[in-house]
């Protein structure tokens, strides 16, 4: 009897004093996914070290472009025939090219130009493409069909050929390279946003918005479009690298940025003649930076994809 009562008291005491959360066994231990953005960052980093490395490398190149010129005394565009084709040394870290210009300096200045091109092109393409895709998806089947077929026609061309044709028609210049990149990149964003919107269109929150009296345009731009943007961010980060590659290819062929402006692809083509006779540095370093840039942007983009799409985790 006495034993029974003691047991009941104990149970009552224990029951009364504890709550669900305070007991150490009741909470998830070691779960980094909660607990603030710092923990989230640690979690992402452990899952995806490569992506963070990519991001840092990208940041480094951006910084290099921004403040790099402070670290070099040479001019990127003034030729100095006395120092033509010097191999890498203490005074010229990456050597000089056939016109005597310091390659390291030119690589830094070229970073600015390439980043500028890529950033503007990707942002413009993303904006235009998203709106295009959104309109196509939302305003009816006929319009959708027509707009998509038109995109199909654009995408039927291999991108470089389309880029070449437009660049050839407009004339080689930095501005035209951006135009080319925008035209070539828009279809991808349009499709991405379109499929997101087609999917979200059926969601309950759209019906709710309509019932409250929102007009179609408002629903589109205030509700649907913002919610469709996460694949766009991922795609944009992957796209930046690809855009630099394309801009460099165009400039390499002579249809992009023109001399004496430094651009990585252009520098490779200028250095190509040297390379065949053994002076490898003028073509090597600019190309190396293209590689690093594209690689980092890909790593970052892949990492973002992991973050945004939990199924891939």
């Amino acid at each position: 009897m006495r034993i029974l009562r003691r047991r009941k008291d104990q149970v009552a005491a224990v029951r009364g004093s504890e709550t669900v959360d305070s007991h150490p066994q009741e909470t998830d231990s070691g779960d980094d996914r909660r607990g603030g953005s710092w923990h989230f960052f640690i979690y992402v980093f452990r899952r995806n070290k490569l992506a963070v490395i990519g991001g840092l490398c990208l940041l480094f190149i951006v910084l290099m472009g921004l403040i790099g010129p402070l670290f070099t005394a040479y001019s990127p565009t003034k030729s100095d025939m006395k120092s033509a084709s010097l191999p890498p040394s203490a005074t010229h870290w990456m050597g000089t090219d056939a016109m005597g210009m310091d390659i390291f300096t030119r690589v830094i200045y070229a970073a600015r130009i390439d980043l500028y091109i890529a950033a503007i092109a990707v942002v413009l393409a993303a904006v235009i493409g998203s709106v295009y895709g959104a309109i196509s998806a939302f305003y009816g089947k006929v319009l959708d069909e027509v707009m998509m077929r038109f995109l199909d026609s654009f995408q039927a061309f291999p991108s470089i050929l389309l880029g070449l044709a437009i660049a050839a028609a407009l004339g080689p210049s930095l501005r035209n390279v951006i135009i080319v990149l925008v035209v070539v990149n828009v279809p991808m964003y349009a499709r991405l946003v379109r499929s997101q919107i087609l999917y979200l269109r059926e969601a309950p929150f759209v019906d709710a918005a309509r019932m409250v009296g929102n007009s179609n345009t408002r629903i589109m731009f205030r509700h649907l479009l913002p919610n469709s943007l996460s694949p766009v961010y991922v795609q944009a980060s992957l796209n930046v690298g690809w855009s630099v590659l394309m801009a460099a290819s165009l400039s390499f062929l002579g249809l992009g940025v023109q001399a004496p402006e430094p651009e990585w692809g252009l520098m490779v083509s200028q250095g190509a003649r040297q390379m065949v006779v053994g002076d490898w540095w003028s073509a090597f370093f600019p190309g190396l930076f293209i590689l690093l840039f594209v690689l980092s942007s890909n790593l970052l983009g892949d990492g973002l994809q992991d973050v945004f799409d939990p199924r891939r985790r």
Partner: protein
Amino acid sequence: MNETSGFAGQAGESLLSIADLRVVFQTFLGTVHALSGIDLDLRRSKITGLAGETGCGKSVTAKAIMRLLPHTARISGGRVMFTGVDLLAKTDKEMEDIRGKDIGMIFQNARAALNPLFTVEKQLFFLLRRHERLNRAQARKRSLELLEAVRIGGARRRLKCYPFELSTGMCQRVMIAMGLACHPKLLIADEPTTGLDVTIQAQVLELFKTLVYEFGSTALLITHDLGVIGETCDYLGVMYGGKMVEFGTTEDLIERTAHPYTQGLLRCSFAGEKDDAIHYIRGTVPSLLSPPKGCVFEARCDVRGPSCPEVGPSMVEVAPEHRVACFRAGGSGTPQE
């Protein structure tokens, strides 16, 4: 043999005997102890159920028997004795011979578990060719018999179907047909009725029971639905947090429940007439990253004692064929010191 394994004697009565099985998973958050020493005996020609919450380790047990665990898992201890041989000591190639032939398995969500790019006939053919070396014609004949045994009408037509052309119930029947195709000694069913409509659930269970008895197989039925267990199983094991907490005949576990967790489970599932409130067991499952030192259920237990957080209880027999891992256990919840 220590005191906790085997039913006081006849090892011959058990087709499968698991002793102190331990499984760990390596994740980037740390080591997860999925199974911390399980004992389980499957009596010949009987259906044994394995119940417990999600994450308690029931599926891991099944996959460990079949050696189908993912690469991140490691069996860190124990023995799985099947007809006298330790499955854990077998090589991968030897296991390939056993799977499908001596031990069959059927899975949850049958439609996803069947290959969408191959017809039913083709998938059965791969199986039959592998273990019984049947050619196309022989396999077709046998497949027809199997489909008829699982009561699929129009079997001839169904053979040529792809899984997406079949209903969920039919997919599950095909799964069962595949599991039993080579007359295995043991059939493991991992949540075969979860997600099915109640009516289909009943049909599939009925079929399962009938066929297991007809084929003379032993079965291990894994589920979190106690109703399913009540209908189908002769024996029942209850798992929690990677450990076996109670084991015995179904009747024993329902009428003379000994473990507080089992009691809680039953109360959650079967509300008595007088109860208005829905019963629940307060608290959450402990993290398997750092399993508790003492009893695994202790934090949520209503009858815990002072020694419960310190020492983990081992399975002791409270009645013939009825074992519990609890210091406080006894019939009808009477505490024992």
